[in-house]
C-alpha cells in the first residue's frame, strides 16, 4: 500500500497546483449548494405548488410542498455530483500524464499495475466522495435551517441517505473506470470529459423518473440500486484494469 500512498500524494500535489482543475472540482458542489439556497429563500407563502405529483411528498401543505419539490430536485443532484467530480480529476490524472509523456518513466518503476491503478483511481475517487458528502451535508443543513419542519424528513429520506452514502462511492468508481477506458482512446482532457457525460445519462434518467413521480426512492429501492451498482462498478473496474496494462498503454493507447 506504501506506493499507492506515494502516488496519491503526488496526485494531490498536482491537483492543488492546477487552478482550472480545482475550479472544475469545486464549482459544481458550490452551485448545487447555492442554487437551492436561493430557491428556498424565495419560496414564500404565496408560491404556487408544482403541478408535479410526487408520492413521497403527499400530505404536505402547499408551502411545504414547494420547498420539498426544490429540495428533492437538488438532493438528487448530489448523487450525480459523485460522477461529475471524479471524471474531471481522472481526466487530468490519466490523460494529463499521457499527454505529458510522464507515464513511461512511471511504468518503468517497479510499481505493480494494481498499485498504480489504485493510486490513480483513488486520487479521483476520494476527493470526489469527500466533496460530494461535504456538499450534501451543507445541503441538509440548509434544508434544516430554511425550510419548514416537515420538509427535511420528506426530502432526506432513508432511501436518499442509503443512496447518498453507499451509492455515491460506487457511482464515483464507475465514473473513474469509464474515464480510464476513455483515456485509452482520447488524447485531450476536454474531449474525455465530454464523452464521460454519457455515463451520467442513465443515472440522470433514473433521477428524473423519481422526480416525475414514476417511483419513490424508498429504502428498499435504494438498497436494490446499490446492489445493482456493485457488480457494475466491479465489472467496469476490472475492464479498466485490463486496459491499464503496461503493454496496452505503450502499444495500443492512442
Amino acid at each position, binding site marked *: 500500500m*506504501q*506506493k499507492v500512498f*506515494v*502516488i496519491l*500524494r*503526488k496526485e494531490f*500535489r*498536482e491537483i492543488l*497546483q*492546477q487552478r482550472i482543475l480545482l475550479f472544475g472540482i469545486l464549482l459544481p458542489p458550490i452551485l448545487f449548494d447555492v442554487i437551492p439556497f436561493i430557491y428556498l429563500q424565495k419560496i414564500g407563502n404565496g408560491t404556487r405548488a408544482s403541478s408535479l405529483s410526487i408520492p413521497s411528498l403527499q400530505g404536505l401543505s402547499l408551502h411545504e410542498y414547494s420547498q420539498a419539490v426544490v429540495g428533492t430536485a437538488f438532493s438528487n443532484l448530489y448523487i450525480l455530483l459523485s460522477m461529475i467530480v471524479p471524471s474531471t480529476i481522472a481526466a487530468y490524472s490519466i490523460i494529463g500524464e499521457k499527454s*505529458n*509523456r*510522464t*507515464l*513511461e*518513466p*512511471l*511504468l*518503468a*518503476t*517497479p*510499481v*505493480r499495475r494494481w498499485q498504480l491503478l489504485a493510486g490513480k483511481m483513488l486520487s479521483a475517487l476520494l476527493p470526489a466522495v469527500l466533496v460530494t458528502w461535504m456538499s450534501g451535508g451543507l445541503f441538509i443543513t440548509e434544508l434544516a435551517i430554511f425550510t419548514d419542519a416537515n420538509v427535511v424528513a420528506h426530502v432526506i429520506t432513508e432511501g436518499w441517505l442509503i443512496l447518498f452514502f453507499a451509492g455515491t462511492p460506487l457511482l464515483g468508481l464507475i465514473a473513474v473506470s469509464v474515464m480510464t477506458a476513455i483515456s485509452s482512446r482520447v488524447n485531450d482532457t476536454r474531449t474525455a470529459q465530454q464523452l464521460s457525460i454519457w455515463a451520467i445519462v442513465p443515472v440522470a434518467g433514473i433521477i428524473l423518473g423519481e422526480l416525475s413521480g414514476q417511483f419513490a426512492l424508498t429504502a428498499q429501492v435504494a438498497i436494490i440500486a446499490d446492489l445493482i451498482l456493485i457488480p457494475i462498478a466491479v465489472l467496469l473496474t476490472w475492464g479498466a484494469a485490463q486496459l491499464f496494462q*503496461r*503493454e496496452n498503454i*505503450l*502499444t495500443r493507447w492512442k
Partner: protein
Amino acid sequence: MRGAPTNAIETSHLTRTFGGLIAVDDLTLAIPQGSVFGFLGPNGAGKTTTVRMLSALIATSRGSATVAGYVLGKQNEAIRQTIGILTETPGLYDRLSAWQNLLFFAEMYDLPSKRAASQVEHYLRLLDLWDRRGDRVGGFSKGMKQKLAIARALLHEPQVIFLDEPTAGLDPESARVVRDFIKQLRAEGRTIFLTTHNLPEADELCDLIGVFRSKLLRLDTPGNLRAGMFGAGTQVRVVGDATRWLAAVRALPFVQQATAAESILTISLAHPDDQNPEVVRALVGAGADIRSVEPTSHSLEEVYLELVENEHASTAIGQ
C-alpha cells in the same frame, strides 16, 4: 534465482511483432558488465521497442533475454527494480518542483525515506540543480530537464542504465557534462545501453556498437567496425602528382589496393603498423619526396551510413 552475470544484458533471438510488422527481428547480443553499448539505427528501426522489451515494459513475441541476471518475462519486477531508464522525452511532472519529482520516483523505487532524500540531494548537487530544487520543473530549460531526468534514472543506483538520446537538444556545454557523467558511470562499473543518433558521441563513449534496423546488422567495437568495413590503410602525401608513384606501391606484394588523388596515395594494407616502413622505403627508393604518412581514418558515421544503405539496398532488391 539471479545468477552472477558476466554479461549485463544477453538476448537470444529476441523478436517482437505488431500484427504483421516485425519491429525487432531475431536480436541476439551480449553486453558485458561495465561497458557502454551504443545502439544505433535510423528512426523506426525498432530501437525503442527493444529498449521497452529489455526494460520489461512490453512483452517479447519470441526469444529470451536476461537483464542484470534476471530472466525477462519471469522476473520483470526485479528487472525494473535493477535498471534505470531515460526515455526519449524527459517525462517530468511540470507542476512539481525538481525535489518533488525526484522524491516521488525515489519512493517508487522503494528507497526508504531518509535514503530517498539523501539520494535526491546527492544527484541534484551532482548535476548542478541543487539551487533550483524548489522551482517548478515547467520553468526549467531543456538541458536542466534532461539532467533531472538522468538523475531520476540513477536515484536507486541501477546497475544497468538505458539512455535514449541523452544529449539530444542540449547545448554543447550541457552535452559535455552528460557525456562526462556517462563516462563516470562506466568507471563505476555500470552498464549503459545508449541509444543515439549522435555518431561522434557513440564513437567517443561506446565500447561496443550495434547497428540495428529491425535486425542487428553489425555488432563490434567502434575500431573493429571501421577496420572491418573499409579495411585498414595508410595515406601518404607526396610532393607533386601522386599517380607517378602508384606503380612502385602496387609492386609491393602485400598491398591490397592503392589509389592516387592529387598528391595523396591511399593504400589498403592488412597490417599497416608492420608494413608502413616498407611502403615508405619503396617510395623513397623510387624517388618520391614524402610530406606525411597517416593512418586512413573513417568515421563511425561513414561506417553507419554504409551499413544502413547496404541493408536498405538489399531489402529493396529482395522486394
